[in-house]
């Protein structure tokens, strides 16, 4: 397994618990209080920072497991990376468009921020899934 594939597995392994932590911190509040009283800013910051830090640590561990391959990538890796980013960007765009529509509809900040947040995390997950699938299945540039 190349370092870049390991790196994509790290994103998947980190993203799922990250989303679960956020859901556990915020969803019960949404169900039991008015939105204005829901504390979501700190959990979101905590989750985003945690996601980034866990990804960095995961990549360090992946690099340490085979240091000689950590800086190796070739054309196929780059093509798979571009392909996965293109796929993942659709969800990031969808999240941003949803936020735009919510802002136009003067929705609560909570919904606007969460549309962007979920679009970003879901985009990262979809991107990694697409890349891992490309590493294991047939992958052509056209």
């Amino acid at each position: 397994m190349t370092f870049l594939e390991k790196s994509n597995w790290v994103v998947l392994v980190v993203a799922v618990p990250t989303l679960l932590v956020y859901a556990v911190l915020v969803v019960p509040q949404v169900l039991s209080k008015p939105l204005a009283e829901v504390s979501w800013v700190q959990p979101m910051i905590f989750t985003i920072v945690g996601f980034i830090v866990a990804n960095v640590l995961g990549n360090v561990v992946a690099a340490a497991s085979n240091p000689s391959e950590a800086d190796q990538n070739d054309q196929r890796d780059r093509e798979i990376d571009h392909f996965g980013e293109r796929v993942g960007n659709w969800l990031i765009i969808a999240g941003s468009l949803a936020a735009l529509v919510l802002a136009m509809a003067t929705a609560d900040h909570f919904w606007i921020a969460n549309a962007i947040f979920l679009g970003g995390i879901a985009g990262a997950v979809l991107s990694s899934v697409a890349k891992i699938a490309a590493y294991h299945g047939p992958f052509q540039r056209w």
Partner: protein
Amino acid sequence: MVKPTLVTNSIRSLRFANGEMTQAELADRVGVTRQTIIAIEQGKYSPTLEMAFRIARVFRVPLDEAFQYSDGQG
């Protein structure tokens, strides 16, 4: 669904004909990862023209001895 490539290759037999060269050694000489050589050998990835030339050059054979293009569906 990604269409399977119509490009086939003889890399495996060329490796064995060249002193049972390992995939890792070929990857090293071509300047790609071993996983890319495996994907090319298994027909899961079509190399770029430049990469194909580099692979053929390692075995000192013409390009069409290392790679073939099926004309069945093209």
